[in-house]
């Protein structure tokens, strides 16, 4: 039995599905961020395995993932900073209740 490309894609797909589910259902902003990370991660995996399996001579996928990780880190940091700030003001993190800026 060999480890084919598909075998890596399937867990990644499931991870992505979980991310989507979490993103859609969670109300807590931090939980949403976590779901987002799941999705990002799954995409990272895809990039890497596609690169490794299909174009082993090249490095695009790997580098893209590298950058994506960096971006994700920055984005998460910023997002969490915002969430904490919002929490400081509104004392809540539930997106259903944070409707002050709506419309």
């Amino acid at each position: 039995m060999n480890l084919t490309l598909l075998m890596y894609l399937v867990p990644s797909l499931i991870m992505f599905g979980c991310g989507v589910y979490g993103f859609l259902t969670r109300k807590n902003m931090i939980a949403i961020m976590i779901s987002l990370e799941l999705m990002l991660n799954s995409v990272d995996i895809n990039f890497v395995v596609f690169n490794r399996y299909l174009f082993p001579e090249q490095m695009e996928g790997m580098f893209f993932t590298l950058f994506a990780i960096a971006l994700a880190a920055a984005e998460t940091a910023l997002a969490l900073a915002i969430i904490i700030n919002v929490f400081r003001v509104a004392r809540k993190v539930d997106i259903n209740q944070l409707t002050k800026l709506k419309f």
Partner: protein
Amino acid sequence: MPLSYTIAVIAIPLLMFLFLGLVGVKMDKKLTGVLGTIGMLITTVLAYGVALTYFFGADQGQMADGVRSAVVVFNPDWLSFTKTLVVRMGIMLDPIAAMMLVVITTVSLMVHLYSLGYMCDHHGHAEKGFQRYYAFLALFTFSMLGLVVATNLFQIFIFFEMVGVSSYLLIGFYYQSPAAVHASKKAFIVTRLADLFFLLGIMILSFYTGTFDFDKLVFGPEGANSLEVAQSAIASSHGATFLGCSVMAWALTFIFIGGAGKSAMYPLHIWLPDAMEGPTPVSALIHAATMVVAGVFLVARLFPLYVIEQGAMEIVCVTGAFTAFYAAAIACVQSDIKRALAFSTISQIAFMMTSLAVSSAQGGLIEIHGGHGLGFMASMFHLFTHAMFKALLFLCAGAIIHAVHSNENSQMHGLHKYMPITSIAFLIGCLAIAGIPPFAGFWSKDEILVACYAKGMGWGIWMSMVAGMTAFYMFRIYFLIFHWRQHEVHTEHAPSDQPWTMTLPLIILATISVVAGFVPAHDLVTWDGRELHTQLNWTVAGSSVLIACIGIGLAYKMYFKENELPDKLQARFSGLWEAAYRRFYMDELYQFITHKVIFQGICKPIAKFDRGIIDGFFNLLAAATGQAAYGIRRLQNGSIQSYVYLYLVGALALAVITMVCVLI
């Protein structure tokens, strides 16, 4: 140019109106009145000059071959509709115009003078709005003079409107009284309705003849009254018929309706009794002597056309005859002195109208050319005399009202003792209108009756009967006011004759009413300008005097001394009496039509339709757009999760579609 100073007759009242209207407010009240009266006096002198020059003067271009023709003094273009159809504003003198100048200026001068006293309270202080009153009087006089000297039909229409407005302003002079406001509104709208028909008539007539000008319409190109243009116009429109009548008949009928509105012919008479809400001198000037005869004047002006178009003439005749009787019947039971006089006016104007209309019946067109037209002459003559004695009666009524502060004859009674001059003047007026020789009314009314008998025995008898009723109701009023029983003095001041400014016009008018019958009208105001040789028809004259005497005798019997007879008769014929007193419910009918049908039935639904349906549609459009926007906005709810959800749905749908496409 001969007679060019006629312009001053028109211009002075206009200038007086502008002057009094613009700067009068700043001036002393009495001064404005005196100024107005002086202006009117000058106008009157000039107008007499014009009339005398026209009738008797050396040749001013008005006499040709023994025929008195029209003189157009000047006639500039005012408004061009097309190259040929041009409205002109000018002055034209012909017998009836010259006569009307005299009538209008005389009565107007009397009213100006009389108002100096009438428009003051008992202490001699002028009423509020005195300046305005004189300004409006001047405006009215101007408009009326402009009307009678009109050179074309459209000019008459213009001044018809102008006199209508002056009348509106004067009836509503006491604008804080709701009754006056209502009456002025009613007068204007009813006459306006009539003017609509007048306008339609002018439109039709001018369309087929291509002109408004009288010198083309009714006076031929060469000399007087060759009817070529009119005839050719009628011939040219001969094929054009509408609902079975020739277009010309329609046009003339419509024009008559216009005149009927102003002259208060049934059923457009309803405004005139209400118009008595205005100051009494105004009633004397406008609603007895001058403006109300504008309709008669109009028909007389277009007389040659009516002669050709007998259909229209019949309508005039029937309307006139009916109105004469109808108004006389109502006048017999009115208790308000001015109302009674108003119905009397309606009746008398109807006499003139009928007289005009019967005159054409003297044979065919050829004979008319030959010089008949007694009715025309009689009508104009009656117009003249009636203006004098009816103005007299109204001014007397004004003096009485001024003395007793009431219009109801129940408040008067027995005034002969207190106001002898007024009483005598009133009596002269009554005798004149009743047709007792030698007073003015006898001569003119006699000619009318002769003309009516000439048309047919029935017409003559009918009109004689109305003449008898006239004598009855006039003396009924007279006896009820001046006799009946002792006057009960209600106020501190016992009623008395009024100051000279008011009495002098009464005396002058009474004098005129006595002598006016001897004016040789048959030489002067004939329809074709030729002298008309008439002589007294003894049969008709005798019988009409007899009928008048019977009427007077009946009135004497019933009303000279207080007695039960009137009440008994009233109880006996209560239905009829009530109907006549309520003017045969014409006002109620109009009220129903205007308020229930037009106002409630048309205007309100239309306004509702506009707000509800049409505006509603646009609002609905806007609301639908707004709702759609709100609906779409819901998608933009700020929740990132819904966005993702929608995005997913969209992406999945795309994917599914792609797959399906690939599969197929």
